[in-house]
C-alpha cells in the first residue's frame, strides 16, 4: 500500500455508483481552529464563527459553525463519488445549526440513475438528526476513476 497516494483510501472506500447505492463518510468534529482555517480560506470573517464573546453577544451559546464549511464537506463527498468533472449541480439547505465538537455523519444516496445522468440525495446528520440536506447531480461519464465499478 506504500505506493498509494495519501487520501485515496477515502476515495477507494466509496461504493460503486449503482441504483440505491449509498456512500457514507464520518468526519471528525470541527474544532475552532478548523473554523479559523475556513474563515481565512473563504473570507467568511463573521465573528459569530470565531469569537465566543461575539457569538454570545448575538444570543448564541458560543461560536457556531459556518454552514458552508460542513456543506463543503458534503460537496467533496458528492464530487469524489460522481467525479468532479461530471458534477453539474450541488445544492444544500441549512436546517439546524452545527456546533464545534459535534461528530458529522455524511451520506449520499443515489436517487435516480440512467444512462446519461445521476442524482444524489445528500444529508449531514449529528446523532441521527439532519442538520443539512441537499442534492447533487451530474452526467454519467466515462472519465476513468469516477464511474469505475458503476453498475447499471
Amino acid at each position, binding site marked *: 500500500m506504500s505506493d498509494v497516494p495519501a487520501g485515496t483510501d477515502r476515495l477507494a472506500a466509496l461504493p460503486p455508483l449503482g441504483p440505491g447505492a449509498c456512500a457514507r463518510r464520518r468526519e471528525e468534529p470541527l474544532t475552532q481552529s478548523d473554523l479559523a482555517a475556513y474563515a481565512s480560506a473563504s473570507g467568511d470573517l463573521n465573528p459569530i464563527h470565531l469569537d465566543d464573546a461575539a457569538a454570545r453577544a448575538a444570543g448564541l451559546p458560543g461560536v457556531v459553525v459556518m454552514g458552508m464549511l460542513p456543506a463543503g464537506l458534503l460537496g467533496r463527498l458528492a464530487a469524489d463519488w460522481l467525479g*468532479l468533472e461530471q458534477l453539474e449541480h450541488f445544492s444544500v439547505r441549512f436546517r439546524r445549526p452545527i456546533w464545534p465538537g459535534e461528530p458529522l455523519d455524511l451520506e449520499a444516496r443515489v436517487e435516480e440513475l440512467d444512462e446519461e445522468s445521476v442524482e444524489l440525495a445528500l444529508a449531514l446528520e449529528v446523532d441521527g438528526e439532519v442538520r443539512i440536506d441537499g442534492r447533487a447531480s451530474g452526467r454519467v461519464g466515462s472519465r476513468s476513476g469516477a464511474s469505475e465499478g458503476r453498475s447499471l
Partner: protein
Amino acid sequence: MELEELQSREGEVLDRFRFEVSPSRVAAFSAALRAPGDSTDVPPTFLQAAALNRSVVPHLALGFDAARVRHADQSFRFFEPIRVGSVLDVSVRLEKAFEREGGSGRLLFAIVESDYRDGEALVARSAATLVQLGGEAR
C-alpha cells in the same frame, strides 16, 4: 423594509468583480475542507470564496438587518468545470424577493444569484437564499 421595495430591485446588479481561481486560494480552501494534501481538485463550494472576499455584502446592500439574517440554502450549477488558473468575471444580482409567515412573524426572503464567466462563456451560476427573520427592524 417593505417587500414591494425589495421586489422593485429584482434584477438589480449588486456587485461585479473579477476573481482568480488561484492555486493558493484553491489549496487553502481545499485544506480547510480536509481534502487530501495532494488534491488539485477545486471543491464544488469554492466559488463561495469569491463572494465572501468582497466588501459588498448582498444582504446589507439589500437593507437586511444583519443580526436577523440567516443563510437558508445555497446552490451551484456548473456548465464547465472550474479550472485552477481561470480568471472569472462575477456578477451578483437580486434574482427574487418574497415573504412568508413564519412561527415568529414575517420572514423576508431574497434569492441572490451570481454568474461566473470566463470570457464570454458562462461557466457557473450560484444562488443563495437569504432570510431575514421576523421581529422589529432595528
